[in-house]
């Protein structure tokens, strides 16, 4: 009962956050000098029909509040994010839709690798806290965490692509390259460095979070019990400490996802990887605000969802939350 109320609270919070994002987006839109169709009017390639559709959609002949706000929220909820300036008035959703795949590929794989490596590094340094290995590992994690993603990417290109020549410097595929399995290998060769960049950048964060959580767990009574039981170190770490330490780490990592995504976008710029990051930079250069807002909205909703998912996971995995005991 208590657990259900807790979950409903989380769900309500997520919805409130998304509504707040919509409001923020609306205000930003109106903040711009001139009316929103001015941006469209600047582009000669936008057809008169598209202009008219935009005017109707935004309800520009009606007052800002509440009519325009309602029109905006209604349209957005229906999946209508407006029209891109740069892409000749194409729908924002379709432009963004094309770019999600490549971004998901490198961010997803990078995230998985980083989670595995970060958990391993964090568990190890936390277990050996205060000792030499911990000092070195923690400093390494801090350095990785403090590196701007784009800089890390530039370094990797210089070393592995330019100097050693092992991997391509940029792009998603070799122009006019083969298809089929060879094409997939070509794609992976192009994706390797962007994925490595994102993974390396994230490892530090996960390692630091888990280390402090593991180091804290070491002081707990159940660890003393496990030691007294004569269990091997590895068993104590895996069987007793990690199940306790992993949960708060997952939640904290989800909370940080928004911050991470922003940095990950810059990786695409460095590698000319045709995803949301590159799209964002192009949109920024051509002041294509509808695209920028679409990206912001999409990423915000993803991050809110990720947090909700982490909460759900937490409540499934931690018996104390599952049974509604105090956290």
């Amino acid at each position, binding site marked *: 009962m208590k657990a259900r109320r807790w979950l409903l609270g989380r769900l309500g919070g997520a919805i409130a956050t998304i509504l707040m994002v919509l409001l923020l987006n609306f205000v930003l839109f109106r903040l711009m000098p001139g009316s929103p169709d001015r941006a469209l009017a600047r582009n000669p390639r936008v057809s008169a029909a598209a202009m008219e559709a935009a005017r109707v959609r935004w309800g520009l002949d009606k007052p800002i509040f509440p009519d325009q706000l309602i029109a905006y929220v209604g349209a957005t909820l229906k999946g209508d994010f407006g029209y891109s300036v740069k892409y000749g008035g194409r729908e924002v959703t379709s432009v963004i839709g094309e770019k999600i795949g490549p971004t998901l590929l490198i961010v997803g794989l990078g995230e998985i690798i980083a989670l595995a490596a970060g958990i391993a590094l964090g568990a190890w340094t936390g277990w050996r806290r205060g000792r030499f290995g911990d000092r070195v590992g923690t400093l390494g994690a801090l350095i990785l965490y403090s590196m701007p993603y784009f800089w890390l990417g530039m370094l990797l290109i210089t070393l592995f692509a330019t100097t050693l020549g092992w991997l391509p410097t940029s792009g998603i595929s070799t122009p006019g390259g083969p298809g089929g399995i060879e094409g997939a290998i070509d794609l992976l060769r192009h994706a390797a460095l962007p994925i490595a960049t994102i993974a390396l950048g994230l490892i530090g964060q996960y390692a630091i979070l888990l280390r402090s959580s593991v180091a804290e767990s070491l002081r707990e009574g*159940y660890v003393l019990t496990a030691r007294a039981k*004569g269990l091997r170190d590895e068993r104590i770490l895996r069987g*007793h400490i990690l199940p306790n330490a992993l949960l708060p780490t997952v939640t904290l990592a989800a909370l940080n996802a928004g911050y991470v995504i922003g940095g990950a976008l810059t990786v695409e710029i460095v590698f000319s990887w045709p995803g949301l990051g590159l799209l964002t930079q192009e949109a920024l250069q051509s002041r294509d605000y509808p695209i920028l807002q679409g990206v912001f909205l999409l990423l915000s909703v993803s991050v809110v969802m990720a947090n909700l998912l982490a909460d759900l996971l937490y409540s499934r995995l931690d018996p104390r939350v599952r049974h509604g005991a105090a956290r």
Partner: protein
Amino acid sequence: MSTAAGADHVRQLPAGADAASPLLEISGLRVSFTLSDGRRLTAVDGINLSVAPSEAVGLAGESGSGKSTVVGAIMGLLAPNGRIDAGNIRYRGLDLVAKGAPLRRTRWREIAVVFQGSLVALNPVIKVRDQVAEAIELRLGESAEVAQEKAKHLLHDVGIPEKRLNAYPHQLSGGQRQRAMLAVALSCSPAVLIGDEPTTALDVIVQAQILELLDRMRQEYGLGLILITHDLAVIADMCDRVAIMYAGRIVESGSVKEIFSAPRHPYTQALLGAAPDARAGRRTIKVLEGHPPDLSALPPGCHFAPRCPLADARCREEDPPTIEYADRVTLACHRYSLGDGKPPTPIDAPYPTLELGKR
């Protein structure tokens, strides 16, 4: 049924141990810790303690007197800044202090602990049944099914209802948790059980139930029981022998009957006189002034001297030797001498007293 986990009655002693040697024997144990500013603190200073099968020995003293450090030393689980400087801990002749001591073999299989505060001593995200089964599976090498089955029997044995078998620690009451902790401790049928303040956080009625259970288990399994507590009433009810600790040293030890009827050391007298005794109708309590000393800055001489009404110049300069009398009574106090070797007549220390319940 009650012998579910203890079914393998023929104990397999670890290699190097011999059944003829005493069960557990601590002699001259000294443990110190390095503080963050580099000073050393001697928490346990040359204590002797032993326990035989089916025997219950109480170790009593205020918090900070070094009782729990003794547990750490026996289990080889001192904090990283702790060190055993001198002395021996032998299990059936097996040296547990030496470098490369077979702790991995003795922990839990031979010596197990019921820690205080089962809410923290049990892992919050693992079912109690699995916490009982874990050591059976990993330390005794049983299959998962056998371990689960044994765990079920053990939990039943300590009085956990059937429907709570799959509960997590937080779903049990304080008394049930302590019962479960006892089942965890008994999971490998150890020969020695150490209770480190096992009933401190519990209310009186639950405390009595747990103590009764502990006593039953001791008789059933022939356990050597070391009971560590600040509560002398518990020791009086449960133990055969008792050792009184003050500032890292055992100041007096002997049979419970002997010590409780004729306390000789001034500190023991204060401890026994500090609580009103409802049964004896005693309402006057002795008042022990001052605080236990700072272990990192101990003055020379008897550690109790600053608070002792009988202390003189010699007490403040010279460490009192531990004298061993007949009937296994030991005493470390300058006021007593060996004499004819029989336990001496107590000297009453003149503590200030307080009358309770006077209206």
